[in-house]
């Protein structure tokens, strides 16, 4: 190790190799090594962002509405924002010579008038550039570890599938509202709104995955709950990596059982009693 460190310091006296490309990546050293072991290398830090408008009044509920109703402008804005951001990330990835982007961080912001979706990840390609470029770079929010495991199991990521729905809960009737005062009981109007939003969003996400010729979705993340600026509107946004089988069949991974001999035996405050 000491020799390596000395060689590393000695290398600082020399300029970088002529013609070497400047590579940017947000991978840690463990992730870089793991990726390298799987035959991939990073090419560039890539981003994609979309900001969509939501017209004023979209979150208002018409007086007397007694059924949950979808806030279509908000739903459409978030759906389009995911699609545009992914498309832009894919373009940047292709320009950087990447076959796809891994470890994509997804940032979602829903305001009263705008919906913003931003993706940041690292473009990767087979070591040395690979035989041919893919027609459509993949996008995945899987970590490098999960990406490598997925490949090993005979699957490949295709795209980041997403679905969104915003549903406005109906008003409670006067009698129901008074009856529920000071009682901790279920609020069926809110439950129903959340349930409706969930079903619509999940269905849209699955349809999105099928549209990219995927067979399934892994590692689904969910953002749900009432909006800060419109408490009666429940949002349900879900996204995950759409995958398809590229091997003849799923490659079973047989993990080895390991019994570590360094069990935790640290200080516990309860032992003082």
């Amino acid at each position: 190790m000491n020799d390596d460190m000395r060689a590393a310091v000695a290398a600082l006296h020399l300029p970088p190799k002529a013609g070497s490309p400047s590579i940017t990546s947000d991978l840690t050293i463990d992730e870089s090594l793991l990726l390298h072991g799987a035959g991939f290398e990073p090419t560039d830090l890539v981003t994609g962002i979309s900001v969509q408008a939501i017209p004023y009044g979209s979150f208002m509920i018409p007086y007397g509405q007694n059924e949950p109703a979808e806030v279509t402008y908000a739903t459409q804005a978030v759906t389009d924002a995911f699609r545009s951001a992914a498309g832009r990330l894919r373009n940047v990835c292709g320009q950087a010579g990447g076959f796809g982007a891994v470890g994509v961080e997804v940032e979602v912001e829903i305001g009263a008038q705008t919906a913003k979706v931003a993706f940041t990840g690292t473009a990767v390609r087979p070591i040395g550039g690979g035989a041919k470029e893919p027609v459509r770079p993949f996008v995945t929010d899987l970590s490098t570890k999960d990406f490598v495991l997925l490949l090993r199991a005979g699957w490949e990521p295709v795209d980041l599938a997403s679905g969104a729905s915003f549903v406005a809960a109906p008003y409670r009737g006067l009698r129901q509202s008074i009856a529920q005062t000071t009682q901790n009981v279920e609020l069926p109007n809110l439950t129903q709104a959340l349930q409706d939003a969930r079903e619509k969003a999940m269905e849209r996400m699955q349809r999105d995955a099928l549209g990219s010729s995927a067979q399934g979705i892994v590692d689904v993340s969910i953002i749900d709950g009432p909006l800060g600026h419109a408490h009666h509107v429940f949002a349900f946004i879900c996204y995950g990596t759409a995958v398809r089988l590229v091997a003849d069949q799923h490659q079973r991974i047989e993990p080895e059982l390991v019994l570590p001999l360094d069990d935790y035996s640290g200080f516990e405050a309860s032992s003082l009693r």
Partner: protein
Amino acid sequence: MTESGATEPAWSSGLSTNDFAACLSSGLRPLGFVQGCSVVAWLFYGAPFSTSGIGFGSYQQPSGYFEQFNCPHGFVSTEHRIAGYNYQQTWVEDAWNAAFFSALKRLTDEARRLGAHGVIGIVERAEHHGDISAFELSLSGTAVLVEGADAPDSPFTTFLAGQKLNKLVEAGFAPVSIAQSFVSIGVYGSCITEYQLRGGIGWGFGMAPTGEVDQVARAHTAARMIARESIRKQLAGDVLHAASLSARDHESQGGPQIEISIRGNRVRRFKDFEQLPLPRPVVRLVDR
């Protein structure tokens, strides 16, 4: 000799115990806890340029990224915006760069005075002090000596320490320096952008156009691309490792202000590295 009986003066370090142990095992000797800081005035956002491109007084001409978004309506009224602008605020970036590079220089100067070969485990603290319109940037880390190595022309710097640094070196990368880029873009919305950000035209004239807020999306995209290109220029053929991108947007001067910073470790390959075998998957038979 010190009062305690030690034969060498004591040193300080910002390393955790684990990082300290890893540092010693890889032949690095801590010399001292070093710091560099800078406080700059942070007063002015906005558009100090004339759109005709002619500077006036303290006004500057636009430099860097600039994009104009024309009103599609023709003349509506004198209060109607005929154009919107996205403009790179190089004067804000200059203030940030002055703070960062001054702090870095002070950190490395202090390390050099200790005879260090590098500074590891650098921690950055950046704070806006609104009450005094100032921005503070501090860097601190542990100056180290590589046993048996010749001193480099300038001490290397890295955010890494401990096992992460050891693995980096073992994988064939030498730490060169920490690298950062900062981009600030102001958005002066066109009429359409204003309608979209407000949600409507106002006075009951109807809804804002739906779809992409093109001007803001383009500003965000440009900021990210410029930040990446700027940090890539600093690399000169090296690799940026473990980069992180952070975005901050806030309202000022009547429009969104978008600030993107990218930071990471500039590293240089000094030896070829054999491809690792794929790791074996294991299940640990412990609860925690």
